[in-house]
């Protein structure tokens, strides 16, 4: 199984092209224009996804539609489930049988998948879940939002478990991260969430059409009928507290390994930055423009972009912001990412939050304004 090189927390990783560029490594004629939802779907197929289960919901429906056409063409499994609840449990069954499985949905449907994700985490089953986030709470809106950050990185379902979360900020990067997500899921036997948003899902960008494959894995725990071996049981139930605690400790050990090996982030203009923006996904695209505008106006701004949202690149952010005057978390949510930023920085630098909600997207000028305000109310003592 091929897995991305583990990265040290102090080195920036450019998984793909910088945000906003969508694959500048390839010359233009070799690139094709793809919609985010469709590109992520095709990336999963290229990565060797054996089975897909989904349910229609805006703004991820094109992903389901792409798979409905392409998976049967490849002789692979596609089922449109009766609910997201059923979809994640079909994924549970297929994963237990050894399939490389993708499920996708958007925020309300992801909530319905919380039960299955907890069971899959407890049963040590790999799956990749793409959340094309929309506005909430409740039915919310179909506009792009990032209000599921805490759900994805802190909780989702019940019980003591964590899920690696990757946040792409361009379609080209999403293509790479789909493959990375499968690799991480299988390497650690865990669900992995790809946290996209309605803009990444709906936008079209030029991408390199040569999606990379992921070598098949040959795990020794899958179910195929106990032919010539002892039967295997895939389960999360451990009724005796002593047994469950042992199981939970083993899970936590896996999470520590993930925290040590799977930190991903990217930085721009950080070396001399007075004000550092922290943003992921679409908010990072806006922040990148804001950094350029601020620099043009004489404000030394930089962007720290976490790519792995859990594990959060806390040490890297702490180090990158050590000489800064202030840090501003920019998000399409009401102060969710900023909690991880504060935990990472440990009070060493003042931390501010700039966010829009409900499907509204921060504007570059709004972000510049937030930077100016952060500059104005801090004295630069840390610099």
């Amino acid at each position: 199984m091929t897995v991305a090189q583990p990265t040290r927390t102090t080195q920036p990783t450019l998984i793909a092209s910088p945000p906003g560029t969508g694959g500048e490594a390839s010359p233009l004629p070799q690139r094709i224009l793809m919609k985010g939802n469709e590109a992520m779907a095709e990336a999963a197929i290229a990565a060797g996804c054996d089975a897909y289960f989904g349910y229609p919901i805006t703004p991820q429906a094109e992903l389901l539609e792409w798979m409905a056409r392409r998976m049967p063409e490849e002789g692979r499994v596609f089922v449109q489930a009766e609910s997201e609840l059923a979809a994640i449990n079909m994924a549970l069954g297929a994963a237990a049988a050894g399939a490389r499985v993708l499920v996708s949905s958007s925020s309300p449907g992801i909530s319905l998948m919380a039960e299955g994700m907890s069971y899959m985490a407890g049963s040590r089953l790999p799956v990749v879940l793409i959340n094309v986030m929309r506005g909430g709470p409740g039915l919310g809106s179909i506009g792009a939002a990032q209000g599921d950050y805490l759900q994805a990185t802190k909780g989702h379902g019940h019980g003591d478990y964590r899920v690696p979360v990757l946040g792409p900020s361009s379609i080209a990067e999403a293509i790479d991260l789909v493959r990375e997500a499968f690799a991480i899921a299988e390497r650690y036997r865990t669900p992995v969430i790809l946290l996209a948003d309605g803009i990444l899902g709906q936008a079209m960008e030029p991408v390199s059409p040569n999606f990379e494959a992921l070598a098949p894995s040959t795990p020794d725990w899958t179910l195929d009928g106990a032919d010539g071996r002892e039967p295997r049981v895939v389960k999360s139930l451990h009724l005796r507290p002593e047994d469950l605690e042992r199981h939970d400790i083993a899970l936590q050990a896996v999470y520590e390994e993930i925290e040590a090996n799977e930190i991903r982030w990217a930085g721009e203009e950080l070396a001399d930055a007075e004000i550092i923006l922290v943003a992921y996904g679409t908010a990072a695209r806006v922040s990148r423009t804001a950094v350029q505008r601020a620099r043009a106006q004489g404000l030394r701004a930089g962007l720290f972009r976490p790519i792995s949202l859990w594990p959060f690149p806390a040490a890297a952010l702490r180090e990158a912001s050590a000489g800064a005057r202030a840090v501003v978390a920019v998000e399409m949510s009401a102060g969710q990412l900023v909690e991880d930023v504060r935990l990472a920085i440990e009070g060493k630098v003042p931390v501010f939050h700039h966010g829009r909600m409900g499907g509204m997207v921060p504007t570059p000028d709004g972000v510049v304004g937030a930077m100016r305000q952060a500059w104005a109310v801090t004295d630069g003592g840390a610099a």
Partner: protein
Amino acid sequence: MTSQPQTGDQDVQLAEGGRTVYRRPLLLSNPTSYCPGCGHGIVHRLVAEVLEELDLGHRTILVGSVGCSVFAYDYLALDAVESPHGRAAAVATGVKRYRPDKVVFTYQGDGDLAAIGTAEIIHAAARGERFTTIFVNNGIYGMTGGQMAPTTLVGQRTTSSPLGRNPATTGYPLPVTEMLSLLPGVAYAARVSVASPMLVGKTKAALKRAFEVQLEGRGFSLVEVLSTCPVGWGMTPTEAMEHLATDVAAVYPLGTWVDRAKGVAPAMPLTMEAAKAVAGPAVHPADTAPEA
């Protein structure tokens, strides 16, 4: 869970002139921990016998459920996956679609299948998923302390219907097999009972037929087994069996509702024939795709 002695894994050496009158099925790996008089032990044994007689033990995957039978994988020597409460039919869909060459069955109680799992079982049946569901209906939530289930008889006292089930506020017993038998995707559906040795024999025959239907790729197969819960019902094991044979059987008639290969099927709102006239014969991906 697995500290019990292994008793089913070998045959006893017979003395000269001796004959075997009882043998544990090889697939029955441990004595069960079910209550005295509970029907699960009987159904487990029948499943083990049928799979052994059809020589399917090495290619079968059990999809467990939540309830008293949650530990079925401790008693049946089969590959098994546990499902969240009610989701067994969705889990089995995932298993069978990826491994169409394996035999897949769910083992579910009535709280699991007929309450929290209704959406999953209806749609798996509607899609004609090629697995078998063994639905053990004892009309009560046994594991959690004997609460009312959708299948509880009218007037029956449970810990959550202490005055007896009142249909004015809680409805009537859910006839799962009759409901599902209306769906073209259901290839086989029968209701059987463990109330007597004769009925146990019929239950075994129904289970065997259900697995055969799966092997033939005909669609979804369902066996509803009426069973007992003496503790939940507040009865002795003997009283429970008598109640099962009389009052329960009066509400849930036994019989084969669907066996399409043998021409047994109820009239349907939209027949398969009508659908074929519109769209032509349906082709299942498992019949065309290469094996996983």
